[in-house]
């Protein structure tokens, strides 16, 4: 109880709340603008988060995370251009409801209500599930942690949207980058090429900003050249949902939130999968099946509740096991680690107030999202009209400013520019940037626990298959790694 009160004290500070609200606001803007992503928003504001002492910076990032998932629905409904991949399913009924049926306010209102419901539902699940799972995870020793890191790395196959083999290659490079600097086990200096800059290891933030923000801006410059962005102005009427709409979509909200939370718990999945599964199930169980695709309110509520419910679910493996489920949670985990908060079961014992502050932060972020959604929706709708010629220079400058201000170092800026340019080409070659980042984040955990396990067993590798939990995670990792190859074989057979 004392921990909860301490957490409430941290979150309820005016500055912390202001950071949270600011984060939600920025997140919605990033989500609403097509071409900007959740990852980009998190990466860009990460250095700013470090400037704030205590929990305020983390709360700001939580706000961005929640806000951006919701923000994607605004452009999905008004422009038929989803701001984030998680909002693709929302266009199916959101856009017809706004244009064909001339009810953009109703569509946005239902989307706001569903997003808030999904987000709060998953936060409640996180509060209930995370401490239970953490208790189990407390029994883990070094071999289990190593197996867990390998399992976490195996999600590379899921986050590698282009090519799984290249995803694994990116992950291996990320793992190698994590070995640069002073080895924590032996104290030996590795791969620094005699420079002091690399002594403390590869700086994670510049690489993150480079591959997620700068590379994306370069891609947007290319896209901007190819397509002329067309905007349509729509008058937004009443946004508060009617009681009849609430009754109509309530069961769908509940079902989709359960689906979203469950999918969020599984590493390697994400809002895009959750929204499509929720949409599919809503259509299957609906009494208005024939209206789907033509502006059905349930078709708007289902994907939005589903993708926002992922936020709480995705934090369950991050906080309890220290495994990021996707790029966004990898960035969040990196932010926690840089702030000295090491996610994992020990976090619940050593820094319990921080855990509860994260729970409360997620809850308040969803409340702030709801309030902003209903009060400022017309402003956010205007954001979707901002021309890219203004937006792209602003983001490019922010990548420089953010990277520099993190350490006041121009070397970091050079690393960021190098990673961004390399990231642009690697994206074209279907490499997954998330796999590289997950490799860097889990690298130290994997190596230290691997070495620690071998010390425990006097050098015998049998320690990894004689312990049931360790074996379970290793088998699960192998299954995750090989699954795409089987599905590839199946697809080939079908095509033949």
């Amino acid at each position, binding site marked *: 109880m004392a921990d909860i009160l301490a957490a409430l004290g941290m979150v309820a500070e005016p500055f912390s709340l202001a950071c949270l609200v600011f984060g939600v606001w920025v997140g919605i803007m990033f989500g609403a603008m097509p071409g900007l992503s959740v990852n980009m928003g998190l990466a860009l504001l990460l250095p*700013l988060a470090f*400037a704030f002492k205590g929990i305020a910076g983390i709360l700001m990032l939580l706000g961005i995370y929640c806000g951006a998932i919701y923000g994607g629905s605004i452009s999905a409904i008004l422009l038929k251009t989803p701001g984030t991949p998680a909002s693709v399913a929302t266009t199916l009924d959101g856009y017809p409801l706004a244009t064909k049926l001339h009810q953009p306010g109703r569509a946005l209102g239902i989307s706001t209500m569903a997003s808030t419901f999904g987000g709060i539902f998953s936060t409640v699940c996180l509060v209930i599930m995370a401490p239970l799972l953490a208790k189990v995870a407390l029994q883990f020793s070094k071999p289990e942690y190593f197996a867990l890191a390998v399992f976490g790395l195996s999600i590379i196959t899921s986050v590698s949207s282009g090519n799984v*083999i*290249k995803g*694994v*290659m990116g992950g*291996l*490079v990320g*793992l*190698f980058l994590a*070995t640069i600097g002073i*080895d924590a*086990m*032996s104290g*030996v200096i*590795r*791969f620094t090429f005699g420079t002091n800059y690399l002594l403390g290891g590869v700086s994670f933030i510049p690489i993150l900003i480079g591959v997620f923000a*700068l590379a994306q801006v*370069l*891609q947007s*410059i*290319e*896209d*901007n*050249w*190819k397509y002329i962005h067309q905007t349509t102005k729509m008058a937004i009427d009443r946004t508060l949902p009617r009681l009849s709409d609430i009754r109509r979509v309530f069961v769908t909200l509940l079902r989709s939130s359960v689906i979203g939370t469950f999918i969020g718990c599984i590493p390697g999945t994400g809002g895009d999968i959750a929204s499509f599964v929720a949409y599919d199930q809503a259509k299957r169980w609906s009494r208005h099946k024939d209206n789907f695709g033509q502006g059905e309110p349930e078709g708007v509520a289902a994907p939005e509740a589903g993708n926002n419910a992922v936020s709480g679910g995705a934090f369950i493996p991050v906080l309890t096991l220290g495994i990021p489920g996707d790029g966004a949670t990898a960035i969040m985990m990196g932010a926690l680690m840089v702030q000295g908060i090491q996610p994992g079961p020990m976090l619940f014992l050593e820094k319990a107030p921080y855990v509860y502050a994260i729970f409360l932060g997620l809850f308040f972020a969803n409340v702030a999202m709801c309030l902003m959604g209903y009060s400022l929706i017309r402003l956010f709708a205007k954001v979707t009209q901002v*021309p*890219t*010629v*203004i937006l*792209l*220079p*602003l983001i*490019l*400058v922010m990548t*420089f*400013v953010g990277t*520099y*201000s993190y350490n*006041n170092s*121009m070397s970091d*800026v*050079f690393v960021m*520019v190098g990673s*961004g*340019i390399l990231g*642009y080409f690697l994206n*074209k*070659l*279907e490499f997954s940037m998330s796999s590289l980042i997950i490799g860097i984040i889990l690298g130290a955990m994997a*190596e230290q626990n*691997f*070495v*620690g396990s*071998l*010390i425990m067993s006097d*050098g015998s590798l049998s320690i990894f298959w004689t312990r049931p939990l360790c074996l379970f995670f290793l088998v699960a990792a192998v299954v995750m790694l090989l699954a795409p190859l089987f599905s590839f074989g199946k697809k080939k057979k079908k095509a033949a």
Partner: protein
Amino acid sequence: MFSMLVCNYFVSAVFLVLGGAMAYGALEFPLAMTEHGPGPGFWPFCLGGALVAVSLFLFCFSLWHREALKARQVAFATEANVPVYKAMGLLVLLCAAIGVLGFFPALAVFIPALMYLLRCRNPRWIGGTTVGVILFVYVVFGLVLNTQFPQSVFLE
């Protein structure tokens, strides 16, 4: 335009060399198992070896599916790539200009240049964005967060 097949062969070759270099670099450190566990070179050596193996696998995979990969094109030299390469050049120039001119003067040159590259010809938009962005950075990061931005070499 290059086919994905050619790109995959190139990627395999580059990562094969990179993996080899990682493994070779790891040989500088002890690899053997002692009472303190495996040497500090063991883990990076394994990673280098794994990267070599995966690179070879990508090469074989590409060879096996060469017809399908040949049909897929990767845009590296289209008209739309040109502004990206120019923007990259601007970024490199900006890095150099920050050291010479200082942070804010360099931005004052970079933003209009980038907007011009993005086909913006409206002087009001260019001027407004440049002034707005620089003011925002100066107030938020310079004044509020007290970030010390690099100054011009002429002022030091």
